């Protein structure tokens, strides 16, 4: 049912090149989901998220010190290996230090036509973040207009916001279906859909979702759901891991990842202000990345609510090795989950994961969750 999404994900470069040819537009690669795609899309630019390839590589050692996360090195490797040669622009919104290095090295060694480091505020809990980010967007909008030689009108922004919001709404619908006792999709399949979402034209993704959702509504899978799991943590597009876990008698029914629900959970709401201010509010108010989740830890109540609403039996907390922002949160998250009687398993990911070892740990975890059924 999800082949078309998988095709985009697996052939992401061909997709972008074809889009470019067909639409005579520009393609911009971005590194972090705090990039306001709506502004780019309004200018007729296709934003595509740069992800790694999960292949061991040896090209980034001279560029990024080995104590930084494997994901940022995997992303940079894609650039250095010229797999994204078709990109016209490259951009990052301020988030963690790790991924920033992929951006700064890339623009130096593989220059692009348009580059942008957007100063997304860290203190999203400050009331002043809205106005500040709106001002940053005004500058960014002008830069994009100059780059594309196209004036971005309010109408363009409206159209873009509408398309992006529709995409988010459809994804929320899809996620709601996972609340069922027998979720119609596995976590691995949902991961494919979200990856495709980050690499494709949202209008096209909407069309595909609109075709998929009615089918899913009527669909009851043959497979046993098993234990209902949540996965949360750093960037995660490791479908091999998801597949392994879901073949051990479990289904991922919900996640808290920037490559998952955090990417689309919140919509741009028309707050009566101008369009850019509305977009800024969306990015300030969205479910935060841990690097921005302070002074209060707002992610914790959100995670607990997801666990409750999706009837989660256990949580796998994963993180990219050396991912400081998540390392600074997971102790508190683990405690909150355990205080709520939700068992957790912590796993550290690299570009490739030791699937055999992880399988043993996952099986033990699932057995532990199922203890009460045994006795």
């Amino acid at each position, binding site marked *: 049912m999800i082949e078309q999404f998988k095709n985009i994900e697996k052939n992401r470069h061909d997709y972008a090149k074809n889009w470019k040819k067909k639409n005579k537009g520009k393609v911009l690669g971005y590194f972090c989901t705090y990039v306001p795609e709506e502004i780019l899309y309004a200018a007729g630019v296709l934003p595509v998220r740069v992800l790694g390839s999960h292949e061991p590589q040896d090209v980034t050692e001279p*560029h990024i010190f080995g104590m930084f996360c494997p994901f940022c090195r995997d992303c940079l490797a894609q650039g250095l290996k010229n797999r994204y040669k078709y990109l016209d622009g490259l951009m990052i919104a301020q988030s963690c230090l790790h991924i*920033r290095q992929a951006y*700064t*090295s890339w623009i130096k060694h593989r220059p692009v036509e348009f580059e942008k480091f957007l*100063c997304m505020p860290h*203190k999203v809990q400050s009331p002043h*973040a809205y106005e500040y980010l709106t001002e940053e967007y005004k500058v960014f909008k002008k830069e994009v207009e100059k780059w594309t030689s196209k004036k971005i009108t309010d109408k363009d922004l409206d159209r873009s916001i509408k398309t992006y919001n529709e995409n988010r709404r459809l994804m929320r619908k899809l996620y709601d279906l996972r609340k069922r006792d027998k979720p119609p999709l596995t976590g691995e399949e949902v991961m494919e859909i979200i990856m495709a979402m980050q690499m494709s034209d949202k209008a096209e993704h909407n069309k595909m979702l609109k075709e998929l959702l009615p089918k899913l509504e009527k669909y009851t899978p043959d497979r046993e759901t098993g234990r209902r799991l949540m996965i949360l943590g750093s960037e995660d597009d490791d479908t091999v891991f998801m597949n392994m876990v879901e073949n051990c008698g479990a289904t991922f029914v919900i996640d808290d990842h920037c490559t998952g629900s955090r990417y689309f959970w919140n919509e741009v709401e028309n707050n009566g202000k101008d369009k850019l201010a509305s977009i800024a509010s969306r990015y300030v108010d969205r479910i935060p990345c841990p690097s921005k989740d302070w*002074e209060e830890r707002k992610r914790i109540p959100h995670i607990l609510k997801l666990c409750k609403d999706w009837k989660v039996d256990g949580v796998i907390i994963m993180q990219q090795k050396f991912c400081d922002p998540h*390392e600074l949160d997971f102790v508190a998250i683990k405690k909150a989950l355990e205080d709520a009687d939700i068992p957790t398993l912590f796993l550290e990911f690299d570009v490739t994961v030791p699937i055999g070892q992880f399988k043993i740990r996952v099986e033990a975890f699932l057995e532990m969750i199922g203890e009460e059924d045994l006795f």
Partner: protein
Amino acid sequence: MTTEDKYPTEKLKCWNEAKEIRLKFYQDYAEAHDKGGLRWAGGAWTFDAIPAGLGDDVYPITSEPYSATIAFDKELSLECMEATEVKGYPRDLCAYMRNYWGSIITDKFAFGYKDGKFAPRFTGAKPIGFPKPDFIWQDHICCSHAKWYQVVSDLEGGIPMYSVDNSVGPSNELTDSKIKYVVEQLKDGIKFLEKTTGRDYDDELMYKAIRNHFVSTSKWAEICELNKAIPAPLDEKSIYSLYVLGTLQKAGKQVADYYEKVLLPEVKDRVKRGIAAVPNERVRVMSDTQPPWSFLSIFRYLEKFGCISIGSLYTFGLIGQWEVKKDGTWGAKTIPDVEFSSRDQALYEYVKYELHKPEWQHFYSCHLKSDMMIRIAKEWKLDGVMLHYNRGCEGLSVGIAENRLALLDAGFPVMAFEGNNADEREFDEARTKAKINAFMETLGVK
């Protein structure tokens, strides 16, 4: 291996005064409550002129230098690291942070009393418990900064916390909106301080503290600038003990006075009289990021080859403020010639000045840091660079590999050595010395 002396040398006369200021800083913090005062905790980069407006009896402890103090006390540091790991925190996190948390978890302060006198634990003093701060006043530019204190607050059972987001982009792209974003946060912060402490805020005290800040940061840069001289009047191992005052309390009068009225005149005099820090100076290098604090002896090892480390962007620009002078060279930032007439205006000047901090620029682009490093290498007449690939600090190691490439491209030999500023388990002294041997040979001074 030891080479012949070429220059006269002598000890710094003001050395002990620096040590006294440092010890008094920790004593004031520890004993603040005994005198009815307040204690607060925050990072070395925090806007410390703001809590100064609460009164003259409000004493800070800054996290990084305190954690470096623990690192120097190897036994205590190991205890702290292990206590932090037992609580579940990964050992690849910021090593300063782990020392600091460990000091709270074990309830052991790095200072105590020996024969009734306040003294560091490693001198044999009986340590006191970690003095809990009354509030947290932090800033955030590195991923770990505000998060550091989130955990401190967790560990202490909740401490009122305020953190300012100062990550608004490089100084060459500053706008009114960026400055105002930080200013507005500081204004909210003042309200937080009043509410938390129940004290009225005194703008005049804040104005004085901002002035001190201007003096400390500008005069420190002026002192470092003097190290362009051959022979260099200061070596980096000594610089570590001097720059630290700025990391303790850059808005403090004692620090501003020491830099302006004590240290600067003495270093000027050394230059005038040709007094060398390293009498056999033959080659000049700089380092980068924090050193491995337990192994500062590597800097003395360099001297055996007649090699002096004249400082680094880290020691120059962590606290020091710089600007490009008319002749195109780097010099101390001019102290703003403004009278403070209102809270808003004073905060605006303070923020506008502080956002130029050299050590904040690489958070946006490692290439900005490379440019500054190449500038130092040229203007301070260096023969090579030693880069500490520091596993203990992601904030200052970010982009370091690109810095290495840029320095090499600019024609400067680079030696990279891996280590950890505050976790001695991750530093291999013998291997580093072997690397130094090879590097010295490259520089022609074996």
